[in-house]
């Protein structure tokens, strides 16, 4: 009897240890399995509301440092990746990669045209939040925070999110790829009132 208890205890311990090991195996191979390197399609114009629609497809999806590939199944297919590791190959964009793709920008910074990237096209683009904040790239300019419109962005040195809708109290509903623990979603934020954040605009909207 004692031996069977010992065996059971060992079995249960081993079971949970194995489970823990599986839980820590973050390599979901999401990018390797699902994503592509297809060329973007040039688009003659894009509206701010059209851009919001593009952004909403990433809502509830994951977050991947240096990433830029997601599907539209409303869940993070690679949760709990280690942060700040571009090699984990998980689902989602990071904040600047998400913005780049939603704003339909080009890999060539001097090119201000609109480029439609498929959701499953794994692309981050050349901009960091810091560079967006400084208005780097031909399509991007800095803008007064008081003048920002839907799908303009608020950027700090380390983060960027787009304005989905302003709130009456001066806060904004921000659509953003927030972090590994949060994924991509819309949250109410006070970025507009923060001195760390500046306004950024993608130019060339058709309306």
């Amino acid at each position, binding site marked *: 009897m004692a031996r069977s208890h010992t065996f059971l205890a060992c079995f249960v311990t081993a079971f949970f240890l194995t489970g823990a090991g599986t839980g820590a195996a973050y390599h979901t191979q999401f990018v390797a399995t699902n994503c592509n390197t297809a060329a973007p399609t040039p688009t003659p114009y894009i509206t701010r509301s059209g851009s919001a629609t593009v952004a909403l497809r990433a809502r509830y999806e994951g977050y991947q440092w*240096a990433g830029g590939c997601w599907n539209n199944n409303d869940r993070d297919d690679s949760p709990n990746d280690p942060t*700040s590791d571009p090699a984990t190959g998980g689902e989602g964009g990071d*904040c600047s990669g998400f913005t780049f793709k939603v704003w339909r920008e080009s890999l060539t910074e001097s090119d201000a045209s609109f480029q439609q990237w498929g959701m499953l096209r794994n692309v981050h683009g*050349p901009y960091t939040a810091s560079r967006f904040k400084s208005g780097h790239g031909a399509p991007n300019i800095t803008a007064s925070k008081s003048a920002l419109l839907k799908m303009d962005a608020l950027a700090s*040195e380390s983060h960027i999110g787009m304005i989905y809708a302003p709130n009456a109290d001066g806060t904004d509903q921000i659509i953003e790829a927030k972090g590994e623990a949060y994924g991509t979603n819309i949250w109410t934020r006070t970025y507009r009132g923060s001195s760390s954040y500046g306004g950024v605009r993608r130019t060339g909207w058709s309306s």
Partner: protein
Amino acid sequence: MSDRFVIRVAAMVVGSLLTIGCDTNDPGAPMTLMNGSRAPELPVDLEGVASPAVSTSVATSSIGEIGAGSAFGACAKRAQGERRSVPVVVRVGVTGESVTFRTESRRGLYGCDNSQGSREEGRRACGVAFGQLSEGRLEDPRLNVGACTTKGGEPLGFAWVQPVPNATFVAVEQDGYVEVYRTAGGLPIRVTTDDVEIDRSGATFRITEHAEDGGLIQQYRVEASVAG
């Protein structure tokens, strides 16, 4: 002495001279830096570095010493809301130059990059970078690619390297030579590479770290991606 023999000897002499000429014309390491100054002499031979090596220049100063109208003046303004720590480290390499400084809180690291290529109108530096420090270290090299290019338009990448404490020199492989950076100010070193992949917003840095006597400490490759 036959004519054939004379021709053969003459051909050998001409061939030898051409070979010598080729050796003489071997560009080796560049002698001048991006700002036109002569590259400083490398004080030691670096173990394990076979390619011609060129030493970059490094200077430490305060923010106030950086001219407001200089390429890096605007960079310093980016951290206006925060107390900036000294020193500010200014580096000049063959194709790129940079400035790096830390906030007094030691939680943030700022950088600006500059190159010889064309740039957006009115912009002095071709890139900016910011990294969050955790216990003094960056979790990401904060790669900048896309806007910095050589005079000929080839893309350049800039990233921070964090050498081990006993390293004095960091050598980065370039096309045909090695660029050598001396550690300074206890700050990560902003290094340059011409091995850039615009399509993946990434760059590769092949690095060796060396002690003060040139001895090799470690050798590694950084596959950096634009992030965050």
